């Protein structure tokens, strides 16, 4: 571990995951997985599709519970029984927000305004405060003009922004993001990345699952590499990006052949792997 983590090592742990296993429809999704996230840290979970990133985020959000092992949030064990307690449930939901990979799943209300109001309503905020806060977030996320729109009238990028806004409206201290920039056009992608960069001042704990290596350095202080439901590597973005073997093993890059065109019109087949030079 290098400098960037030594600074936060003294900080409190937001999440501590110890030897967690989880099966989904009898198929193992996570096996004996351990990881930890400090408060105010930005952590990226890297991995190919089906490596267990999304499952991990759902466990961290208290939506599923491990078969073995333990997850604690700010020192308190996160179990199904614990979440039955209304007071803990509401304080946990208020502090931890999850943005789903599929925005269609996240946007279940008839209009954008209702979508943003859903969280605060369930947490029993008073109505005037909800209206005020929803309008504030609508403006901040630059989606005020969409407030009466139905989800089926939004573009992919707009949907993602509304999904993010619907979580940010509660101002959670921990943000869990499942592939926030997947399948977005460059401009929508840049907006999300800008937002994640803005979280870099330690004000929020952000855990992002991604397989996008280009923006890794901007959005994370530290990474975990997932493969087949296990952590196969951890480190700063630079360390990870230089570990070609690790990335290959995690199926995040593959040796490939491509063709260079030369000035004389000839072409030359050229097998190689890309290296990331910081």
């Amino acid at each position, binding site marked *: 571990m290098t400098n960037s983590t030594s600074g936060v090592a003294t900080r409190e742990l937001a999440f501590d995951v110890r030897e967690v296993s989880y099966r989904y429809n009898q198929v193992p999704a996570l096996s004996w997985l351990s990881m930890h996230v400090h408060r105010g840290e930005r952590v990226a979970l890297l991995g190919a599709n089906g490596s267990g990133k999304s499952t991990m985020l759902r466990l961290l959000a208290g939506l599923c519970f491990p078969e073995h092992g333990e997850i604690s949030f700010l020192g308190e064990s996160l179990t199904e029984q614990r979440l039955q307690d209304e007071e803990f449930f509401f304080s946990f939901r208020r502090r931890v927000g999850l943005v789903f990979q599929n925005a*269609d799943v996240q946007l279940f209300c008839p209009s954008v305004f*209702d979508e943003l109001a859903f969280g605060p309503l*369930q947490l029993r905020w008073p109505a005037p405060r909800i209206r005020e806060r929803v309008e504030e977030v609508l403006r901040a996320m630059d989606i005020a003009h969409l407030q*009466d729109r*139905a989800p*089926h009238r939004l573009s992919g990028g707009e949907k993602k922004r509304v999904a993010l806004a*619907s979580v940010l409206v*509660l101002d959670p201290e921990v943000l869990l993001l499942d592939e926030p920039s997947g399948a977005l056009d460059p401009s929508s992608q840049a907006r999300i990345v800008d937002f994640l960069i803005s979280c870099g001042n330690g004000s929020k704990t952000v855990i992002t699952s991604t397989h996008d290596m280009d923006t890794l350095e901007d959005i994370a202080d530290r990474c975990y590499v997932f493969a087949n439901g296990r952590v196969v590597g951890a480190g700063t973005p630079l360390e990870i990006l230089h570990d070609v073997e690790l990335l290959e093993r995690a199926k995040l890059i593959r040796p490939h052949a491509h063709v260079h065109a030369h000035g004389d019109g000839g072409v030359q087949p050229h097998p190689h792997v890309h290296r990331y030079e910081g």
Partner: protein
Amino acid sequence: MHIPDGYLSPSTCAGLAAAAAPFWYVALKRVKSALHARLIPLISLFAAFSFVIMMFNLPLPGGTTGHAVGMGVAAIVLGPWASILAISIALTIQAVFFGDGGITALGANCFNMAIIGSLVGYATYRLAAWRAGIGSARRVVAAGLAGYTAINVAALCAAIEFGIQPLLFHDASGTPLYAPYPLRIAIPAMMLGHLTLAGLAELVISTGMVAYLQRTDPGLLRLTAPDAPPADEPIRPAGGTIRLPTARKLWLAVAALLILTPLGILAVGSAWGEWSARDFADPRVRREIAAASRNLAPPPAAPRGLERLSSIWTAPLSRYAPSFIRGAGFGYLVSAMVGVGLIIVLALLLNSLLALRPPAVGRPRRKGFVEKTARGLLEATGQALFAEDMAATSGFLQHLDPRVKLIGIGALIAAAVAVHRLWVLAGILALGVVLALVSHIPIRLLTARVWLAVLAFTGIIALPAIFLTPGAAIYRLPLLEWPVTQQGLRTAGFLVLRAETAATLSTLLILSTLWTRLLRALRYFRAPVVLVAILGMTYRYMFLFLATARDMFESRETRMVGVLEPADRRRLAAASAGVLLGKTLQVSGEVHMAMQARGFRGEIRLLDELQMRPHDWLRLAAFVCAATLAVWLGR
């Protein structure tokens, strides 16, 4: 089977809505309990699924197509109570957002299809499947039987509701004010279509779905199979085709079911007091008819058309047939069935004529049902999007508070259904046209989408009433000598004008209302929060599933070479429905998580809408006054 406005009297509608109320109450109570928190997204998504399934064109033997309601599947997966809610919501969305099925008749439609359909479907499935294993073939057969029985019992209920209208509701001259056909015609007419086409469609969907779930997610069948052996299901390899009954087996099944049902139809007899040709000769019956017609003496002999009709069938049989078949009652029944069959053929012909379009350039081959279904799905989405665009423009109705509009137009539709005078009915229709003009809703659109469409459907249904309604003959058709009765003309006029007026008004409501606002405003009426939430979620996911289904059919269309065999087409339709069901269940599970992640614990909370302003109340009062005036003038 979606009963439009104007076919049932207001008291019938109110009675059926009242009969449905306790079922809804119990269903809501059950869903509200925190234990069933997962059911809220599941019901919403199932309702959206059922809505989309109703748009699938299922190829049936004989080159025809049919639509399923999906109540068999809903009852099997969700259990009877949640199924009642899911189908009711789907029907509400069809009536209120798409104008399919009447707004005043919503209670009746929910009673028949959602409540009776779900309960009968569930009971049949439980009885037929008994304790068979989750993966057994018996469950598939039971599912088919459940779907088939459910839709037919629902259709029988609708037929009885139609059939009692002329008996109970007529004016001083004996003119039936609502559906003009007595039970003896209404029952065979409804059952003919449902015992064959619609029943088959439901059967195909139900068997296909259960077979699909057995392979992919057998756990979902556990809810309604508590007695099934708990043995671990062997996980079968995914893929492969779903086995569906062949056309021959389907026909055999229908034949067997058909044999069982005419007995029921025959048993109904003339106990309800409709008039067969024979009854006209019986003095006692004549007195009854006279009393029912408020002392207007019935013609001394049966209208000759009626007599002629009833002899069409008995004549060739008379010598060899057993006596009950030679009876005029049976003859009348069978002739009515033949007549209705002809009407259906006519309607289908007219439909295909209206649907004729120039073939797309470069794609001369007819792709049949895949293309037709894809187009239907696209049209439904387009129609909804068009309505949303229209509602966003400026105009009188568009500017009204959605609550005012819902109650106001609802009151006018109720008035149109309640009045007993044709000119008052015409007046309400004229008011509708004025409202359309001040709201900048093009009359051309209303003509094409409402007036002609309703005329084609209700007009054809009303046509035979001109000849079949007993009363004073004012004209005889040359050659056939069928009498056109004054009462017949008036009853046909009532039926068509009522249906036109109600459809016009509900189209105005659809085209001028932003549903996102209305759904929020519904809370103001103290509508149960769960219901409002489910309704909103259904409306939202309906679009997602419409798009998913369309993508499925379109991608299939681009890969299709040659024409599919009917059995393949059925398999394809059932498989598509299966994929959609899989998607429904997956999205439902994830939506539940997304709700939980934002603080949902089973008890849903919604924002209350702002108060109504004084001028909103004023406009509401104007609507209600107009409706009351119409009812008073037309009483």
